[in-house]
């Protein structure tokens, strides 16, 4: 079985800007794949390369084993949920959803039936007669999803689809998208800058920075065993310790990452530090410690005593929590 999407040394340059730089990428069929990274890291360009809105400057792209470069977007059996939804303002919801079927020449009756089924699937039954302008942001998002899925694409691309929704709605949609993806078995490729979203939804994640993929792996791998300082810092704001500090604390002169929730305060043993700041986060309290001139964040579970600013404390961690990333991460 070929990969759903595969990139071989794909680059996309805009003038002197290397938006995507020699990227290798393999996405398995049926996978929920997230492309995570800050804005301008090349993740959206990668998505647009799959959709066909951009063409690679060099390299080779395959979709289910078929060469994709040079193929216009309208001939790719790939559909996109756009960041701004891009619903057609002049068409009602049903016609929006049925647009792809209409273009393919599906008859009116069948079109209407399939559109209504797709709307039902995204929990908007009976909304067909409304205009996109009459819908809330969350509803438009669902219509955009139905409009893409009704075509039964081989790959569904989602470009920050939850970015415009408020927190509660976003969490609900994350859950629904996951259920939907498992039920349909369609390969989802999902672009986001929200690490929490990527970790909770994706089967695998590619972390982008500066047009390159820093690391690809399961959420667990990315979270627990970041390969670079960037990944450690971007995914879950882990403490990144310099080789000097790591040598002092663990005896190895390498970069390392240490998650704030893995650190605990101890009464004796461990290492000395000074509290330079505290902030209450609700479910926990974040301490900022000064350790030999470097800052380390610690998450204290609620209920434990919070030391005062300027107080000297001792801290320790489970032996496997400190993750080494090599001398040149």
């Amino acid at each position, binding site marked *: 079985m070929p990969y759903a999407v595969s990139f071989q040394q794909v680059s996309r340059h805009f003038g002197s800007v290397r938006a995507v730089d020699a990227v290798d990428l393999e996405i398995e069929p049926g996978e929920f794949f997230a492309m995570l990274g800050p804005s301008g890291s090349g993740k959206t360009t990668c998505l647009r390369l799959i959709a066909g809105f951009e063409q690679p400057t060099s390299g080779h792209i395959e*979709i*289910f*084993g*078929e*060469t*994709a470069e*040079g*193929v*216009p977007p*309208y*001939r*790719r*059996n*790939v559909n996109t949920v756009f960041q701004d939804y891009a619903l057609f303002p002049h068409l009602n919801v049903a016609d929006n959803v049925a647009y792809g079927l209409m273009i393919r020449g599906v008859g009116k009756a069948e079109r209407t039936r*399939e559109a209504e*089924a*797709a709307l*039902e*699937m995204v929990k908007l039954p009976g909304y067909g007669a409304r205009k996109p302008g009459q819908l809330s942001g969350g509803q438009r998002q669902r219509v955009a999803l139905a409009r893409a*899925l*009704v075509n*039964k*694409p*081989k*790959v569904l691309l989602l470009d920050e689809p939850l970015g415009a929704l408020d927190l509660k709605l976003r969490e609900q949609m994350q859950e629904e998208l996951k259920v939907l993806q498992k*039920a*349909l*078995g*369609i390969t989802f490729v999902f672009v986001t800058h929200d690490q929490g979203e990527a970790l909770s939804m994706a089967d695998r994640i590619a972390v982008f920075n500066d047009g390159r993929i820093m690391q690809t792996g399961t959420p667990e791998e990315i979270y627990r065993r970041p390969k670079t300082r960037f990944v450690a810092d971007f995914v879950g704001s882990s403490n990144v310790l310099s080789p000097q500090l790591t040598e002092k604390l663990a005896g190895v002169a390498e970069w390392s990452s240490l998650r704030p929730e893995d650190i605990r305060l101890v009464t004796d043993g461990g290492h000395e530090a000074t509290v330079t700041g505290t902030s209450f986060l609700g479910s926990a309290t974040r301490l900022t410690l000064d350790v030999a001139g470097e800052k380390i964040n610690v998450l204290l579970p609620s209920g434990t005593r919070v030391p005062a600013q300027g107080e000297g404390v001792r801290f320790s961690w489970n032996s496997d929590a400190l993750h080494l990333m090599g001398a040149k991460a």
Partner: protein
Amino acid sequence: MSIAAAPAAAAILPGRGGIGGALSDAFWRSPKLLLFLMLTPPLLWLGVIYLGSLFALLLQSFFSIDEFSGLVVREFTLKTYGELLRPSNLDIIVRTVTMAGLVTIASAIIAFPIAYFAARYARGRWKAVFYLGVMLPLWSSYLVKVYAWKLILAKEGILTWVFEKLHLTFLIDGWLALPVVGGNSLSVSPTGTFLVFVYVWLPFMILPVQAALERVPGNLLEASADLGASPSQTFRNVLLPLALPGVIAGSIFTFSLTLGDYIIPQIVGTSHLFIGMAVYAHQGTAGNIPLAAAFTVVPVVIMGIYLWLAKRAGAFNAL
């Protein structure tokens, strides 16, 4: 759910086929081809026919006319431009530019309260009334507007009648007796010409000023008042500078339109020529195309300088 059926179709679909499909693919593959095809007709029309005509006209201003035969001599010379500097021709230029300047100033003064009201106070229905109230006169027939003023300014017309009823006829008579601005009646005086010019071009001033004023955030004025400025100080120091780009944008229209007009001074005004009338006369009955061409260069040069100054003042953002 029909959708849940596993997707079995190909990842890459075949093309639509036919000429439409092939053309579509070609355009997608080379967007430059599409751009080229889209731009060719308008560029041929505007770039070749229109600009070509303008350049041909410019070229002819460097020819001259043989004084005996009346034929155009097709040799490069600056002689025709020299003729522009004759006192009678200079007179025409000075008269036109002065008129354009006065018309622009008067339009700005009358336009400001209307634009200000429409931009800051009119809401909902009134906003629409004001918008249409400016748009309808702007778009309604130019000749009809000029004609209306011929009716108004006629000796037996409404203006004389109103002044008579108010027993103020002496005011009109006194004004008409003045040198330079006066004349036999309002419809054959420079004052009449001025009034019609202001009337006809006024909407062109209101719209950009209104657009500029609408961009002034309301809280800016409140901030100024908060800082202790009196309303007149706020007007002078905050509102006026912010509205100025709009005024300049509007003045481009009023100035340019006045410079080039030849119908208004012909219908309402004295026998003294304006640039437009001179151009019309020289190209028509006199058949002196080179001089007519040289005359048209005058407003172009003036407008060029004016636009350059306006651009430096940031007026184009208000267009």
